[in-house]
């Protein structure tokens, strides 16, 4: 993970800072440089609060004991919210997916974050994911429906099918639909998406 642009032109502490930025996902050498130089121009208090925020986030943010979403409290905001339905559970791979679903403002149930997908190639079997707590939760909390919202990849489908097998004795299990993105033109959709949409067709009501 070293920089492609030689850091020789930079004084040592600055080179270190650039190197740290470059380790972040989605940040290339140029952006790393820009961010580092930008920080140098900020007042010292600003830098302190930035560093504090980093450390505080790292030390305080853990996982919700119930749904495993990122949370500083033992129970996350969603699990604490009395106005949400407690009978419906939406299963996602990680917190980013949860946030994406939250942005729709359409879903009022609870979540369960698995912490990944089953992928033997990467050494990830079911025990490494929060699957057992999910089964316990469904059994204990009298969940009436579990919605599986996992990516339609081989790993996502494997995880969905596996979960469906485990959960069906306890509750109703459904899966989010795959199809055309709203607002896109049919003729520009790729063949795979179109084929999936055809396969998942529904009778007109």
């Amino acid at each position, binding site marked *: 993970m070293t920089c492609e642009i030689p850091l020789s032109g930079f004084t040592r502490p600055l080179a270190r800072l650039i190197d740290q930025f470059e380790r972040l996902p989605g940040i290339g050498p140029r952006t790393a440089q820009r961010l580092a130089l930008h920080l140098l121009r900020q007042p010292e208090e600003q830098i302190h609060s930035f560093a504090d925020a980093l450390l505080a986030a790292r030390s305080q943010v853990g996982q919700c004991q119930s749904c495993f979403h990122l949370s500083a409290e033992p129970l996350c905001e969603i699990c604490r919210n009395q106005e949400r339905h407690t009978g419906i559970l939406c299963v996602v791979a990680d917190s980013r997916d949860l946030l994406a679903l939250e942005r729709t403002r359409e879903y009022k149930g609870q979540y369960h974050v698995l912490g990944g997908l089953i992928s033997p190639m990467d050494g990830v079997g079911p025990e490494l994911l929060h699957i057992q707590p999910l089964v316990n939760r469904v059994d204990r909390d009298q969940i009436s429906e579990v919605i599986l919202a996992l990516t339609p990849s081989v790993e996502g489908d494997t995880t969905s*099918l596996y979960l469906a097998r485990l959960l069906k004795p306890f509750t109703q299990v459904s899966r989010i639909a795959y199809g055309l993105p709203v607002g896109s033109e049919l003729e520009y959709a790729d063949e795979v998406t179109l084929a999936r949409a055809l396969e998942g067709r529904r009778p007109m009501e």
Partner: protein
Amino acid sequence: MIGSNGEGKSNLLEAVELLGSLRSHRCSSDRDLIQQGQATALVRGLCGGGPGGRGEAGVGAGASQGDALELELRRQGGRQARRNGKLLERQLDLVGPLRCVGFSALDLELVRGEPALRRQWLDRVVLQLEPVYAELLSRYGRLLRQRAQLLRRGLGGAHLADLLDAFDQQMALIGTRLHRRRRRALLRLEPLAAAWQRHLSGGNEQLLLHYQPGTVLEGEEAEAPWREALAWQLRQQRDSELRLGQCGVGPHRDEIQLQLGGQPARRYGSAGQQRSLVLALKLAELELIRQLWGEPPLLLLDDVLAELDPTRQQLLLEAVGQGEGYQCLVSATHLGSFSDDWSKTSQVIRVEKGLIGA
């Protein structure tokens, strides 16, 4: 294209193949296609119009007049495809103006070699027929790899059976689709290949392309019963799979048996018969693509013509010259091994040190 070994003839043909089909028969990674020490590689080609409208500078069988195709490979950041200077959102949209069929010395193994070679050949044909097939193939491959790793690493624990069930369910569905599409493509290829085999053998050899699926499949090819059959057989072989670490049923065990006069050509065919057979398969592929797209594809013959005897060279020449004819790019080390008719009707280009001479 004439040139000594290592001067760049195959490289040029590979570039055409890449521009036409987005893949190379030689390697699967773009890194192997980019010159060492360089960050990018660029293939640029100008396709003339369709039959009758071929420009002097262009090659190919495109429908539109003078399409400029461009494919840029990068060590980092993937590919970029441009058509007439316009960046394409999907590289797949580059396919069309330059359809081609390759024929290299590797293909001579098609009859004698391992079943995997025949599956790859058939898969290339199906990909031309049905673009979604690429997704099915890659999904199935990934399922197989994940399943093998699951057993090898012992990750299932107490729930191994449930996990294998999840794999079975997906493999039964996707496997059935691969079986059906392969069988369908073979049914379309068979009459064409059989006709060429009769032609190449002077009318007395009966060719059959016999599909032997890696799953026992009875009856007609309706999806549901085939899927159930595959699912059932996947369950049945589980014990032996756990012992051997290898999944024993499914399309990855398919064989396409090539029969001449009712006998498997792999075992009983003479060397000459086997060569004719490969030729017949290639010509059938060529013709199927022409039927499908209404345009003759470009034929790429990489160092293979010299391996055919003069009679078969002559038959190939006649075959590709029929009707409106196919444009061929042929590479060889010297002209001597070609029949006079080939040399006379061809434009000869010399390739030296990666450059095209007069």
